[in-house]
């Protein structure tokens, strides 16, 4: 589909929730790895991350974010026509987490609720999905819940978060512009190969090996092909940003802020340099919140842009990219949106 425009969709508000528990990439790793970690942190730009305790899940964070957002928006529960969850850490393989949350949030049985399976690229795709329903006139108010429970103590990249975004029909809303793309030829670049129908769990998937640092590795660990992801991100994202801006009739100078998925410093700095953007227009939360998967765009907006977005109307370009492979860009105006401070739970 590529480029498209949605009309009459207003960005009404957004809330982000992260776990209270902070992990340090230096302190929370084996002593034998600490000198190597200093170099790693310089290059990935991630010093601390947030991790859920065992009893907390993505849906708990998203639930808290949604409760706070609904309260601040003063929306009646019965007004929410659709609830879409985009996550790769559902409560169960089936049924959809969105349907469980429909009940937990006290939403009506008339609510459309289902899950979408996307990771780091999720946010623009989610805005487009719900925005389309609103733009078509079939629904008036909707919630998008995006995030993941993806942090582990061993892995230095990923961090947990849950977010809620509210969209509503408004005849006065300025257009939203989108560019959404998929390249399934790269599906092996980021992959959890075990546990689905092609390779169900078996006893041998539970037997780990130990590396030279004493770290355990399981056959069902996430596969992440670093060079492939880096090449994909730095080659695909800059032209997509330029194409979306051109489609919207904008120069990059006309856009106040560029919020990219927070992958790692190497990837994000390369994208920023290729687009010749200055730091002050490209907020980052890598240092303290790491890579929060699909939640990283809202988390960065909450942590870095909340005051600026509350002060006056701003034009933003949001760009998510990653697993699939897929990449999506959205240009929108945010004006008078409800934006609670970062929630820690």
């Amino acid at each position, binding site marked *: 589909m590529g480029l498209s425009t949605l009309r009459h969709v207003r960005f009404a508000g957004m809330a982000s929730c992260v776990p209270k528990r902070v992990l340090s990439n230096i302190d929370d790793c084996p002593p034998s790895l600490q000198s190597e970690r200093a*170099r790693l942190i*310089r290059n990935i730009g991630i010093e601390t991350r947030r991790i859920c305790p065992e009893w907390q899940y993505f849906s708990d964070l998203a639930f808290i974010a949604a409760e706070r957002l609904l309260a601040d928006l003063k929306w009646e529960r019965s007004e929410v026509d659709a609830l879409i969850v985009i996550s790769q850490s559902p409560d169960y393989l089936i049924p959809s987490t969105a349907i469980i949350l429909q009940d937990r949030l006290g939403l009506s049985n008339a609510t459309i609720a289902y899950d979408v399976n996307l990771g780091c690229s999720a946010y623009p795709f989610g805005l487009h999905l719900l925005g389309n329903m609103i733009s078509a006139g079939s629904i008036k108010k909707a919630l998008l819940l995006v995030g993941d429970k993806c942090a582990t103590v061993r892995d230095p990249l990923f961090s947990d978060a849950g977010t809620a975004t509210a969209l509503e029909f408004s005849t006065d809303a300025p257009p939203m512009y989108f560019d959404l793309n998929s390249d399934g030829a790269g599906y092996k670049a980021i992959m959890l190969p075990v546990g689905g129908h092609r390779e169900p769990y078996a006893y041998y998937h539970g037997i780990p090996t130990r590396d030279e640092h004493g770290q355990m590795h399981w056959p069902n660990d996430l596969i992440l092909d670093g060079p*492939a992801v880096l090449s994909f991100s730095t080659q695909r994202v800059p032209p997509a940003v330029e194409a979306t801006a051109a489609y919207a009739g904008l120069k990059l100078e006309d856009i106040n802020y560029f919020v990219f998925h927070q992958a790692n410093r190497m990837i994000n700095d390369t994208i920023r*340099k290729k687009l010749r953007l200055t730091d002050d227009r490209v907020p980052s939360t890598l240092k303290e919140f790491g890579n929060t998967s699909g939640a990283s765009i809202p988390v960065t907006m909450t942590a870095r842009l909340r005051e600026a977005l509350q002060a006056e109307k701003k034009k933003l370009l949001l760009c998510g990219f990653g697993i699939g492979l897929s990449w999506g860009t959205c240009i929108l105006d945010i004006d008078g949106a409800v934006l609670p401070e970062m929630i820690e739970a």
Partner: protein
Amino acid sequence: MTTVNDFIEQFLIAVDFQDSVEVTPDTVLLDLPEWDSLAALGVIVMFDIEYGKTIVGDDLKQSITIQDLFTLLSR
């Protein structure tokens, strides 16, 4: 025109090794104690930003020495 010595200088910045190491065109990448996935990512970024060249993981896997990497510049 980039010389191999300029290239080696950029390479050492890109790989960000903790311990300094002497590198010549004949140095074998796998013999470098800190040549790892992070260094490989740094080299891919270096080709892109410093030289405007796109290389992928397979290009690195097929490069045995620094000279092989340098040759990718004129590809």
